[in-house]
């Protein structure tokens, strides 16, 4: 059989894995939903939370589609479709594909055709290099969760601070990341201001949403404040980049 990176066979194989991933998500959704109902949680509120999660996901998911298109130039559509629907991310998949291709004397971004052997080699590298999280969570997830529950039972106040501190630690790392190109400003290159300004617009939009909820009593805004600040922040990047880029 002649090999083609866009062969229907590869679409079918990728599709099988993706359907299984989809099934896992549906399974956990139904399980959690039933449990929430059983313990008497406010189902209307949960529906709004699910709606917000869906709306919020759209923009990052479109960015993932762009990553599929980018990787498809070298690898065809089925492999990036599979890889970006499970486990990976744009940066990881690009690095893994680049390393695998260069190990076989190819240059990422300039590959016109792959043999079946090269393709299998690239897939093996991409698959094996990121498998740790999938098996490590089943191995230690329960112990980690038990540790948190016992912390909660020992000292509730510290347990609450503990979980807030973890979130703040994660957010502070990403806030720092927004400024990683800032030092170029000291050399007169204003492009380093683009990410901080986009972040500022997003933060201001979030503040305006918060004020609107308080002043005009529009509770629905609080449900969609994060997607709104995300989209307007991204939109602001277009004129800001045109001005400073």
């Amino acid at each position, binding site marked *: 059989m002649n090999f083609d990176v866009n062969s229907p066979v590869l679409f079918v194989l990728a599709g099988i*894995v993706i359907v299984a991933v989809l099934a896992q998500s549906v399974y956990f959704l139904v399980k959690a939903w039933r449990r929430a109902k059983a313990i008497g949680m406010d189902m209307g509120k949960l529906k709004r939370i699910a709606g917000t999660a869906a709306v919020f996901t759209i923009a990052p998911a479109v960015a993932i589609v762009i990553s599929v298109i980018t990787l498809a130039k070298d690898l065809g559509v089925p492999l990036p479709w599979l890889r970006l629907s499970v486990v990976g991310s744009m940066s990881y998949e690009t*690095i893994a594909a680049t390393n695998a291709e260069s190990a076989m004397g190819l240059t990422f971004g300039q590959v016109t055709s792959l043999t079946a052997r090269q393709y299998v080699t690239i897939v093996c590298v991409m698959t094996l290099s990121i498998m740790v999280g999938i098996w490590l969570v089943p191995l230690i997830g329960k112990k980690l969760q038990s540790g948190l529950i016992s912390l909660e039972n020992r000292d509730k106040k510290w347990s609450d601070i503990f979980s807030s501190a973890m979130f703040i630690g994660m957010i502070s790392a990403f806030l720092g990341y927004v400024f990683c190109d800032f030092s170029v400003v000291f050399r007169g290159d204003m492009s380093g201001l683009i990410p901080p300004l986009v972040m500022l617009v997003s933060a201001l939009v979030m503040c305006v949403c*918060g004020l609107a909820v308080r002043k005009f009593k529009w509770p629905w805004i609080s449900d969609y404040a994060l997607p709104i600040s995300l989209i307007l922040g*991204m939109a602001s990047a277009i004129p800001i980049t045109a001005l400073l880029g």
Partner: protein
Amino acid sequence: MKNDLSYMDSVHRDGRIWNISMMVLLFLFPVAVAVIYHVLPDWQGFLMGLIATAPMYWAVAVVETFTYVPMLGAGGSYLSFVTGNISNLKLPVALNALEQADVKVNSEEGELVSTIAIAVSSIVTTLIILLGVLLITPLTPILNAPVLEPAFAQILPALFGGLGVVFISKNWKISIAPVILMLVLFIFVPALNSSTVGIMVPVGVLFTLGVSRIMYKKGLL
């Protein structure tokens, strides 16, 4: 309490079965291609590619597991580590949902809210990617349009601007030290960039936990 434990136990049991099955299924993809096309990997290329890629990502995955599992909850973790895009999508979705519901992730309500938000996000992501693949020919020129490029390049700043306001305003006392530390590090250490931010997340988490513990012990929180 017994019911609570049995629900959590069942989440771990099901999560283990799903994740191990998904791992096997993911391995079967290259195996199936190899069998169908009667080829074996280029072992030298495979080893060199693996050595260049795996050590860093294996280390990052170990650190991410310890860092993210307590934030995502049990069900959310099993799902997120299969569906990927954790820091740029699943974790913000879970954080926002917990904030919306006003619950902590270490409560049962928090566990359920986080799982529901991550599951919905995973389903929507999968469906949008599927749509993108089906419509790849007409979509490519639109999504690759130069005018839209800056918007998609700035997703993380746009995401963490809004999220930062919500969480920092509610926890400003414990936010000051880690935010200053990270700003100084990312501005003045050239090695810190988009590919190293994953490593800095646990650093930020451990530092914030340490500062918070000291403040808590001194009665400042």
